[in-house]
């Protein structure tokens, strides 16, 4: 049976790599986080396109970019940045937050 799991995995991998190649060139939107606060707190992007959020953590301390609306959850080390691929999204407002500072690190992504 383990063999079967491996087979499924091996079948899925080339598909995944193929899909990854197709998404190389997308527009970038900058999002900074410092001391538990996002800047800007409202990010706007057009509906129907893929883009990536370049989340830069100025520190101090690690931050986790998290959003249940967007199904993303990723830790950003202080002094570093990560790319979060998003979209195409339906028009609307999507809440995101920094899970390591949930009281202050709040923001939203507006898609229109």
């Amino acid at each position, binding site marked *: *049976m383990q063999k079967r799991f491996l087979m499924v995995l091996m079948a899925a991998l080339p598909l995944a790599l193929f*899909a990854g190649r197709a998404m190389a060139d997308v527009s970038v939107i900058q999002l900074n986080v410092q001391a538990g606060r996002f800047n800007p707190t409202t990010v706007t992007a057009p509906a129907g396109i893929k883009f990536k959020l370049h989340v830069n953590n100025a520190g101090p*301390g*690690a931050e986790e970019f998290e959003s249940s609306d967007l*199904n993303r959850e990723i830790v950003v*080390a202080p002094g570093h940045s990560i790319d*979060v691929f998003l*979209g195409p999204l339906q028009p609307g407002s999507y809440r995101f937050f920094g899970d390591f500072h949930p009281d202050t690190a709040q923001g939203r992504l507006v898609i229109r």
Partner: protein
Amino acid sequence: MGSILFIVWRESIEAVLVIGILLTCLNRLGAGRAARWWMWAGVAGGLMLSGALAAATMLVQDELQGRSLQWFQTGMMFAAAALLTQMVLWMQRQGRKMKAGLEADLTRAVARRQDIGAGLIALLAVAREGGETVLYVYGVGAGQSTLGVALPVVAGVALALLTAWLVSRGVRRLDYRIFFRVTGVLLLLSASGLVVSGVASLCGMGVLPGLIEPVWNTAGLLDSGSGLGAIIATLTGYRSSPSLTMVLSWVTYWIVVFWLTRRHQPAPAAATA
């Protein structure tokens, strides 16, 4: 204090539940001692891997390293889901045999493989959320007294252990057949949640498209981002605003599980013979 306690409880509850339920099942199958040893070794390994992952996250130098780390963490989710599914299906078969009064036909080698599997599941369960928890506690705890940090951490883990104890105590009272059905479903639900998280992670890395995002939004009913909703989300794979890709992966997972279950079920005629 309160937030550290809650976060530690929330992050450790899944691992503690999975490990607790697995142990209860293995004990009931009579495969207890060696499996227990492997699982504790797995927990210890998982704690070490958590520390290593936290350190790796802080030491990331460039985009490429960050991406490798994401691949590794995503791989951990799929590996955990596959191991857990395989283990549950094995236990279901074993449980059926024991119930039918058949001699357990597992050779030592097969049993050993399952013990190691159980250890690996424990390792991955602990390491998956462990790294983030270490980073969180490290960040929030900076500038606080050691006791002020250690106390809520210990309390959070204790609370998770208590929850798991209550659950496994509750299911232990169940009749043999229902017991394996209930625990099996609980563990498979958790595995389906791992698959969904893994797929969401691949979408976030730009590896998979979201297709339609979101397909629906039930955040008003039960928000998978906070409180009870977040715990239900990690335990069942529920998401309040999933992408189509995530929904498809969840459905595919269950189709594969049902297919694998059916394949190993004896034909009705053979069962009565």
